[in-house]
Every structure is written in C-alpha cells, then in structure tokens.
C-alpha cells in the first residue's frame, strides 16, 4: 500500500469517529468534540490533497531553488475552514454553557423541550 494514502485513511477514520461521537455520546460537550473531530478530519483531507512528495511549503522567502512546492490553494482552504471552525466551536460551547444554566444538565436526551 502506498504510504502517501495514509493521511486519507486517517482523515476518513477521524470523520467516522467524529460521527460516532456525535451520534452515540450523550454529553453536549462531547457532541461538540465530535463535531471538531469531523472538522479535523475534513481539514486533514483538504491539506493532504495539496501535498506533493518531497514538496516544500509554497513560500518564496529563503526558498531552496528549483524544488517542487506543495499546492497553496488547499492550505488556504484549510485555514479558512479552521477559522470558521473556531467560530462554530465557540458558538456551540457558549450555547452548551447556557443550556446547562437553564436545564441543569448536559445530557442530550434530557434537552428536549422542543419536540412534536
């Protein structure tokens, strides 16, 4: 098996683990952790897409001459995704704080006043 494919497998594993956490854990904080796991998996996937074997980072400051660089676009995408992930995680955790204050619990199965 090609060693270059390993990051893709790790990314898929992270996504699956995140989904598992999101679906089967009961604590709201753990749900948020599940979401960040999926996010990490997707980010890893994106950044791996741009990797070229033996490539250097795509910056010309003191760059060695005539060496191949990795693709910069996926790195920009990943960075944007990380920034967005920061905002969503902060928002989700803030909601979790206030849910705990109002409901007195972080159990996802007890936070269900809105139903039917």
């Amino acid at each position, binding site marked *: 098996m090609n060693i270059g494919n390993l990051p893709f497998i790790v990314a898929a594993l992270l996504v699956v683990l995140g*989904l598992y956490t*999101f*679906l*089967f854990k*009961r604590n709201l904080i753990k*749900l948020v952790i599940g979401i960040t796991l999926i996010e990490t998996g997707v980010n890893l996937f994106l950044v791996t897409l741009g990797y070229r074997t033996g490539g250097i980072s795509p910056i010309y400051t003191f760059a060695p001459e005539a060496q191949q660089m990795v693709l910069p676009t996926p790195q920009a995408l990943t960075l944007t995704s990380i920034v967005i992930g920061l905002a969503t995680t902060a928002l989700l955790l803030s909601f979790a704080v206030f849910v705990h204050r109002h409901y007195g619990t972080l159990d*996802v*199965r007890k*936070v*269900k*006043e*809105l*139903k*039917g």
Partner: protein
Amino acid sequence: MSGLSSGFGVWNPIAWALLFVGILVVSFIVRSFGNKGYKRGTGQTKVFLSGNDEPETSNGLHVRGDHLYWGMIDGLSAYYRRVKAWHTGILSDYAAWFVGVLGLVFVILVLAR
C-alpha cells in the same frame, strides 16, 4: 398578460374574479326570490341544537385551538402516534436521520451510475 398557461391548463385570475363577481350577483338574485316572511327576534332566529337548549355562558363561548379538527386528528391517531414519537426532540436523532438519508442517497446514486 395576467393569464398563466401550462400548455394543457389555463389560469386567469382576472377572468376568475369576474366569474366570482358574476356568481355572487346571480346568487343575490336567487336569494331575492326567497321567502319574505323572515322575522328577527322570533323563534326563527334561535339557535337549533338538536332540540336542546343553548348552553349558558357568561361571556360567550370560544372554541379553542385544540378543539378544532378533533375528529380528524383522532381518526388519524395511529399515524399521529408514530409521527409524534418520531419527533423526539433529541439532537442525536436529528443527526441519525441525516446520516441515514446520506447512506441511502449514496447507495441509490452508486447503483444508478
């Protein structure tokens, strides 16, 4: 300009409105042929509830929201029991349905390819 044609059906709101007004006029004409012996304040205007007396209420009776369509909801109770149990309000279930549909769509798309 106002009409809408689907190629096999036609919908024209202006014509519809004219027809509506026309039927209204006709029904008023028909109504004017009716019995002129109608009197207010007599037994003719009393509410008829299968011969029973009108129930006394202090400031009028209001049929509340949940009382409407009681029969229909009761008739569909088997459906509503299921669909209410389905809307649990638990976030994990929301996500489970999403993942389930995702898997189903994958299978269908890959099979249809």
